[in-house]
């Protein structure tokens, strides 16, 4: 429903937690532990997602190498069978600078078509879905995350977390920096662009920067870049605020095991899965969600599913 987009579910008073007779593990006739671990080995959505991510990135590579001309360019800007697509944060910086220099009028119709096409596409498919379904850095970071979690589990390192709103400090900050220096400063530090271009046009020295970020994520803070820094992700999260495609949470199927929060890149968006936290029978995961499906895979009660918001009321 449209009203779902605007009501603040967090402020409502929470529902009463389910009694043990109504818990899904009791209904399934299992012990809580057996039930909780029942889908730990399920990686269906993750495998589909990795396949899509690798396919799209390799399509970029082979479009150039083999002259296929299907998906030309890189993640900064590309042409899909001749149809332009532009990265919105890159475009935003460019627009900010060019609004002061008068260069704005030079931008081609292809630029505007590319920008609006991609905004509409990811508006429908969920903003930050870009992160987990397209971004090559996300793929690397998932492996780094596994290593990091292993080290934390073995008590070799301490987990460090920061405020999730810092991304917006970086979003505004890099925009200001672009304005002040008249240079796309972020593009030189953009791990997404660096990897995308390294794959397509060959490696550059800037890959050392990517390595540094990955090492930081392994040894210091879990998913540091994606969670707290990346302004591209932050832009997508703004775009995704109104996305119809979202992960749906059903309270009656939830067993309060919080396995989903443990695997999630943005656990704050799953605030309602704790015992006594949900305020509605149905919640939709917020706009920071990358729709990666790790929670869908791991949820023993199938309480989390992909869904289209408002579809049931339309049908």
């Amino acid at each position, binding site marked *: 429903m449209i009203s779902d987009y605007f009501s603040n579910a967090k402020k409502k008073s929470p529902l009463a937690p389910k009694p043990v007779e109504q818990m899904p593990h009791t209904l399934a006739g299992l012990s809580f532990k057996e039930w909780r671990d029942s889908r730990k080995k399920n990686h269906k959505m993750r495998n589909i997602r990795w396949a899509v991510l690798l396919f799209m990135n390799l399509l970029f590579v082979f479009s150039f190498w083999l002259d296929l001309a299907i998906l030309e360019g890189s993640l900064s*800007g590309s042409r899909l069978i001749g149809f332009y697509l532009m990265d919105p944060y890159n475009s935003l910086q460019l627009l900010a600078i060019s609004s002061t220099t008068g260069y704005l009028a030079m931008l081609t119709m292809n630029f505007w078509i590319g920008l609006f096409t991609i905004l509409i596409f990811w508006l429908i498919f969920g903003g930050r879905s870009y992160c987990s379904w397209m971004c090559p850095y996300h793929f690397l970071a998932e492996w780094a995350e596994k290593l990091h979690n292993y080290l934390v589990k073995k008590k070799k390192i301490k987990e460090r977390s920061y405020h999730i709103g810092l991304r917006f400090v970086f979003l505004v900050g890099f925009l200001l920096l672009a304005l002040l220096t008249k240079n796309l400063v972020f593009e030189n530090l953009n791990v997404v662009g660096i990897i995308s271009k390294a794959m397509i046009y060959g490696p550059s020295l800037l890959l050392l920067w990517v390595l540094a970020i990955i090492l930081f994520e392994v040894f210091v803070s879990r998913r540091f870049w994606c969670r*707290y820094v990346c302004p591209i992700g932050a832009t997508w999260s703004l775009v995704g605020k109104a996305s119809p495609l979202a992960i749906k949470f059903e309270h009656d199927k939830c067993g309060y095991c919080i396995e989903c929060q443990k695997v999630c890149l943005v656990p704050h968006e799953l605030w309602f899965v704790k015992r006594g936290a949900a305020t509605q029978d149905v919640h939709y995961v917020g706009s920071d969600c990358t729709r990666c499906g790790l929670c869908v895979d791991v949820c023993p009660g199938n309480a989390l599913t992909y869904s289209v918001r408002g579809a049931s009321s339309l049908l």
Partner: protein
Amino acid sequence: MDNEKKNLNRREFFKGGIAAAGTLAVVGTATFILDKSAAKSMPREDFLRPPGAISEEDFLYGCIKCGLCVQICPVHAIELAGAGEGLGFGTPYIAPRIQACDFSCDALQCVETCPTAVLDFRPFKEEGVRAVEKAAAEPGADLSTVNPFEVQKVAMKEAVRMGKAHVNRNTCLAHKGEGFKGNPRGADFKGVHRSPGKNEVSASPLKDRVFNREVCDLCITECPIGEKAIIQRRSRSGRKLIPHVLDGCTGCGVCQMVCPTAEPSIVVEPF
């Protein structure tokens, strides 16, 4: 309790925010300075911006480094700068000695494909339209005898100004009165080019071509623009035939690529 949590949360945000802003200022400025100083310290003469490039100042922010121009170039003349070239990381350039722009795409496709118009197609388009109108207006000509595509493509390539070629008199074979026999760049040279004399559809490897000239004139015969850009003329003493670059030179760099001397004796200087 709730309020306390909120305050703690806010404090955490400000603490992180200040750290973030600090890092941003340091890292951002450092990157910017590195990028700029690299641009100054590196010699620019070997690198050209692709055709239609706007002023360097606007180019540096207008170019989103997508590489579409790189991908569309049929002779792969355009490369993206690494950290070493000092051109602004990831921006496109042409190193004409390695592979010059020989206009074998026929329609300045790198310019046309650029989404942010740092390679600005509009002047070329206007130039092309003007040339077609002019050709059609000539006495005895009408659109049935004039091939607008041919006229347009010639006018567009002639409007390119990447730089201008300069001849080094000390090393140029023609200035020494010498001829040239054989292959100008050796059997391992990877560059390709479409020779204007041979009416080819696409470019062919330069290593497959053999020349035999009494007086070396490769830069003149291989120039894709022709007599508007470079001509052979007699030296003042009247004893030698030497290349002479005219204002019609587009700076494409084909002469620089085909020049047979070890160090090119004709070099394009970017504008």
